[in-house]
């Protein structure tokens, strides 16, 4: 399970203020491991071991983001998130051992912003925390009024400057990759067959283009997704085509 290393998060994102992170899991070892990883990023860390404790900490401290386990005693993650959303708008990332789609959908519907399945890669956790914080603290404003700027999740495509950024970081794409992404971002959530995509971007493709659409898609995914094996935005609909989900 090779995780993409093309996103250079280390040291790129500098921030003048320290963020408060709440880690909530009934498994102390997991909480400690997360503390070790996240402490390197200069966050102020708070811990809780069940939902009730988590809500108490949120009352007390100016928490900026929460890592929340689902299966916990006393009050589980789903109940906590329901209670939390009555008052707070803080980003919540669910940590869950349940890998079923229905569990993920339920969590997101209840108000979670992202989810990570156990066992997780610590690097992915850090990347997602960073992504959520950026969105919440810096990019949370209204989308640009410019008609040439498109935004899906943490991906921004500025057609006037031919610039693609992910969480504010510039991503370098080949002209073909850019053309495909531009085509898909214009009509998000619509499934396009490889043939349709090919026809749409052919004008910009030189003759004898290397590889197929599927290969290009995989390359784009590796550049814009935190975990290309489990893409959040550029998804394959197997047997039908591809779509950009937002």
């Amino acid at each position, binding site marked *: *399970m090779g995780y993409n290393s093309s996103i250079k998060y280390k040291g790129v994102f500098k921030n003048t203020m320290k963020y408060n992170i709440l880690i909530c899991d009934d*498994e102390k*070892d*997991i909480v400690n*491991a*997360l503390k*070790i*990883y996240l402490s390197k990023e200069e966050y102020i860390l708070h811990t809780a071991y069940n939902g009730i404790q988590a809500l108490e900490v949120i009352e007390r401290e100016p928490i900026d983001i929460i890592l929340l386990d689902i*299966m916990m005693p006393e009050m589980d993650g789903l109940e906590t998130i329901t209670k939390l959303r009555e008052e707070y708008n803080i980003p919540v990332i669910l940590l869950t*051992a*349940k*890998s079923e789609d229905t569990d993920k959908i339920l969590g997101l519907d209840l108000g979670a912003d992202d989810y990570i399945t*156990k*066992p*997780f*890669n*610590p690097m992915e956790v850090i990347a997602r925390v960073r992504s959520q914080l950026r969105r919440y603290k810096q990019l949370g404003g209204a989308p640009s009024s410019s008609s040439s700027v498109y935004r899906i999740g943490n991906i921004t495509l500025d057609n006037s400057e031919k610039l693609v950024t992910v969480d504010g970081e510039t991503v370098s794409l080949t002209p073909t990759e850019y053309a495909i992404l531009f085509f898909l971002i214009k009509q998000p959530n619509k499934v396009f*067959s*490889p*043939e349709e995509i090919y026809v749409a971007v052919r004008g910009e493709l030189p003759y004898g283009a290397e*590889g*197929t*659409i*599927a*290969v*290009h*898609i*995989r390359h784009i995914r590796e550049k814009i997704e935190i975990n290309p094996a489990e893409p959040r935005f550029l998804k*394959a*609909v*197997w*047997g*039908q*085509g591809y779509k950009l989900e937002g």
Partner: protein
Amino acid sequence: MKFTKLIQNKPIMILTFFVGLSLGGANFYQRQNLSNLGYYRNSFSEIYQSRIKNLCSADISDIQERMENLRDNGYFDESTSEQLRNQLAEGVLSDYTEDKTNFFFTVHDMKDNLLLSSYSDDYQYSAVEIYQNLKTETVETDLTEEEYQTFQLPENANILDEYSYMDNVSFEEDENIAYDDDLDSQAIDEAYGVPMEEVLDEENLMMHHIRYEVPVGDDGSYYVTGYVRSRFDANDKYKNLYSSVQRNYRNRYIYVGFAILGGLLTLFSALMLLARAGLRDEFSTVKTGVTEKIPTDVFSVLILCALAVHIPLIDDFVYMPRTLQFMVGVDGIGALILWYAHSVIVRIRAKELFTNTLCFKILRKIYHLTKRTAKAVPSMWKMIVPVIGFDIVNLFGIYSIAENETDFGLFILISLYVLAHAIIFGILYDLYILEKGGQNMADGILDKIPEKWLFGRFLQHARNLNSISEGMNKAVTDKLKSEMFRTELIANVSHDIKTPLTSIINYTDLLSKMNFEDEQATEYIDVLGRQSARLRKLTEDVLEASKATTGTATVHKEKIDFRVLIEQIEGEFIEKFNLNHLTLVSSVPEHPLYIMADGRQLWRVLDNLFNNVCKYAMSGTRVYLNVSETESEITFMLRNISATELNLSAEELMERFVRGDRSRNTEGSGLGLSIAQSLTALQGGVMELQIDGDLFKAIIRLPQMNAEPLTVPEQPTISVAKGRPA
């Protein structure tokens, strides 16, 4: 409220019943008697007829004796006799006003000279008169004293003429009318020719008389004539009877009224009593009494006997009204009928009208005895005996025809024919039902065989089959339950494993980032990292395999283009192939290949196969991908040369936890091919593996759009049932 209580009171109702019955009975009887008035009219005539007969047959010696007695005791007076004779001579009518009797007799000789007359109906008195008169008139008659003494009224005394108010109707014929049930006196009046009212009118009773000729010796005879007083005004017993009849006739409507009232009372109280027969106050439970201990048929016979005793009491109409006797009769019969009706209703309510009979009990005893005997007979005989019986009857029919008893013989044969057909149809139908049920069972449809129209041994057979099917049903249900339970268990366990696994992976990662002096430590940490990653993959695959094989995985089938899927999968793997120095040679039709399948699951299948190729194909070789189609199915084939010797059969490769090379310690659970096979089956397709030397072939056959799912050589559910615990 009071009235309700009253009518629910049993003794009061019984009392009302008898009062009503007696009242009604008595009045009905009175009214009924009125229709028998003819009797009384007859009786008037007959009474004075018999008086005259008595007069004629008087024993002279006996009278003489009494007369002497009178004379000796001074009662007899010659002058009195003289006076009487004179009075008589003056005429009959002058004496008719006497207040002693309504009947009057005269005796004349052949020359129509009046010999004597009597206005008494008293036998003795008349006799004295006769004697007295005879004695005084002896000289003037031809009869000697001796002749008088031996005088007997001959048996053949002729009735010369007869005058009564019923001139033209003889008494004997009238008897029928007297018994007529018709209460309407009009009919009687018509029969007698004189209206009843007129008959009873005193004015019309004018000197009705009857005359007898009484022969005396050879020379002649004398005549006795009887009269009835026209006004009927003397208060003798006949007059009294006459008066009572008259009174009854006047009161006839009152009798009718009371009879109806009594009848209504009887009916009402009887209904009240019968309505509550055998019920307690709450109208719920039925309570049988002492009477119900007697079997119904025995009770019926007893009641009939009792009725037979009572019926003559009301049936025996006699001259004189016997109201009391009639009342006793009516009350008795009424009570018996009420008792019987009450008991029958109680028996019906207790549902024992027929069961509580002597006949039923005897028949039941016989039935049980027969059944017990039949049980002892071996079952083979139960089949043989009816057939033999059938043959005997059949032969009897043929014999009858041979003996010219054609009609009878034909009747027997046709009856047998119809019976045999009915039985054969029944047997065929039952066989059909059993056959269908058995076929269903063989096909795995474990429905119960309907037992409704089955009989005898077929029924027993159906029941046996049903109990087998029930057992199988239970076994299948239990199996399914345990499968579901196992899948759930695996899901829970794998979730529970993931939590500690997270810590292991994380801390191993942390360790790997530390600097160790010892190189071996770094090596060991590498092993930990590799094995924990493998454990993680295994956990995920086990869960997926259990879901795919038990069919708990949900399949979202939609129309997809298989060609697009191939293109997508190639895009995903092309660089990985290049990395392993593998060349993919693909041959796919140019046009879209539409199928109905779950794209994600089918991708998992292909992903698995392509990953296998990457792992196990010999470096530097070509990998062939072929997609071909027929009308009903699409065939996908992936061929590669194995890097190592394949020492396992294709079947073994499909088994879970088996991998192509056990020696190499690569990541993977060995579940991949098993999952791929199960997922293919879920799409209605078939996955096969073929090994030809080092050539490894994976073939997936999928049904075309709208085509029937392909037959799977081995059902996934059954293979799981046999599988080892995961």
